[in-house]
């Protein structure tokens, strides 16, 4: 088997990278970090996988169709939070409406965690989509992938 050391190392690294992405994701509302950075780190794990095992193997794990759905879900998580606050009678993205009568603005924490999760999902899916299309060797992007 070719590139044995590379492949074993990248397999070892795969899980810690994703763990780190999740740390950055859920740490983001208090410390440095957040959905955008976490999404990129998350995507990096799969890009590393594609580098070491080939794009086709990665596509088996995460097909383009799944990425498209993830992009949409990520975006809808964000805007959906705004829609829910509107339905609860407050302004768009006024997270306080999520937990009314809270003494320490608990709604703001819930709101930002959900929104950052949406950002993370959408960014990871978009990064991978861009990567797939740039590394795919077809002369034209295969439209059946969309």
């Amino acid at each position, binding site marked *: 088997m070719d590139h044995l050391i590379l492949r074993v190392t990248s397999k070892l690294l795969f899980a810690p990278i994703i763990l780190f992405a999740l740390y950055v994701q859920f740490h983001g509302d208090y410390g440095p970090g957040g959905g955008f950075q976490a999404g990129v780190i998350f995507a990096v794990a799969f890009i590393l996988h594609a580098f070491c095992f080939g794009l086709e193997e990665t596509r088996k794990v995460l097909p383009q169709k799944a990425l498209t*759905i993830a*992009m949409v879900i990520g975006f809808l998580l964000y805007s959906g939070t705004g829609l829910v606050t*509107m339905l609860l*009678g407050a302004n768009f*993205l006024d997270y306080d409406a999520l937990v009314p009568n809270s003494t320490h603005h608990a709604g703001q924490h819930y709101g930002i965690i959900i929104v950052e999760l949406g950002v993370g999902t959408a960014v990871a899916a978009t990064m991978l989509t861009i990567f797939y299309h740039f590394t795919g060797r077809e002369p034209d992007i295969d*439209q*059946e992938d969309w």
Partner: protein
Amino acid sequence: MSIVAQLPVLPIVMPIMAAPITLLLPRGRAPHLWACLFTWLTFAACIALFREVAATGPISYALGDWAPPIGIEYRIDLANALVLLLVSGIASVVFPFAYRSVQLEVDQRQTPLFYGALLICMTGLLGVTITGDAFNVFVFLEISSLSTYALIAMGARRDRRALTAAFNYLVMGTIGATFFVIGIGLLYQSTGTLNMADLAQQLIGQDNRMVQAGFAFILVGMGLKLAMFPMHLWLPNAYTYAPSAVTAFLAATATKVAVYVIIRFFFSVFNFDFAFIGAAFTYVLLPLGLAGMFVASFVAVFQEDVKRMLAYSSVAQIGYMLLGLSFATVEGLTASLVHIFNHALMKAALFMAVACVVLRSGSHSIHAFAGLSKRMPVTTWAFIISGLSLIGVPLTVGFISKWYLLNAAFAAGHWYAGFLIVASSLIALAYIGRVAEVMLLKEPADDGKFVLPKEEAPLSMLVPMWILVAANIYFGVRTDLTGDIATRAAEALMMMAGGAP
């Protein structure tokens, strides 16, 4: 939730949430119907918003309940309510129209992406218009621009040159947006705020180099986006090679929104206490507006491609809008706002007529228009009536625009500008007349580059097109609607700018 209290945010939230869902819909009819539904809902929300603003005055909406100037504020007064109405109205007509045209010109497998991008583009344009936050303008500008680049590139199925046109626009548009954001950055540096109303307050008495540089960057950046002569070079190719329905939508909305941004910044953020504002009006906008009117019209006369001819004509018409606002009077500003509205109506109708011809003949070269009056009379007359409107014939909206513009020119003492407006209208007569002559009198000569149209365009295209042609005449007769609203909007803007009302 109270629907009235949430009304200001609905024109943004509805289409932007609908757009990603479009991606998941099956190819074919579904994405189109879904997109149409949301343009209509958005149009309805914009009408409600417009009525609300006209009845009670400016509305302010704090996103996330973060009070301005800290949070992002949506602020709707008559001027942007009119532009909102225009953008959503044009969208609600062009989207239903697009189906057959897109079927021909865009890869069928890309339709979910296409309608998604079109919805995002509309959201971006509405967002630029509705927001009262200077940085938010930039964000929405990028949202609309990025989707526009993709939409133009989708014309590559018919003509690969769409790719270079889109890339050209991408480079120019990005430079424009960068200049704009540098300008905002300089203003932020000197005031510490991004809210437009607050910016206007903080800028009072700050006539220094940084503010002047910020102003210049904003003017040049937006000038690129609105294709101000001589920064219009991206526009003819982008409009020519984009799918026809996209051209109809962009020509009617994108540059108009950029003109609105110029108006908003010149009159609501900066004010007449700054000496450089007056200088910019007199020595930049006035001459460039006049030059654009003539040079672009003149170039349009010699185009072999009708789409490209209309694109150059758009550059010339933007000259009229800049000329109107460069007078810095209520009359001038009114003329500019009226022409934003009216030109959108006529240009959308004209490009839609071209889209019908492309559908049936496969070409937008002038040769494909030969003898069209016998084969596609309904389309021919739509083109001719909107063409007359472009020239400025009485009973059409074009006449109203020119009338307000002439009034403004003479009232401001620029009588020579009045004559130049009339003279440049005669050039419009030349290029529209040339196409009309070919359509009515010439016999079709088959050179193999296009097919002779066998039948009229389908009803799904004719009806939206004629709605706009009818609007051209309706608003040309009922001038009180646009004229009064534009006058009230202009008076409010002049009050903010501190000029004599």
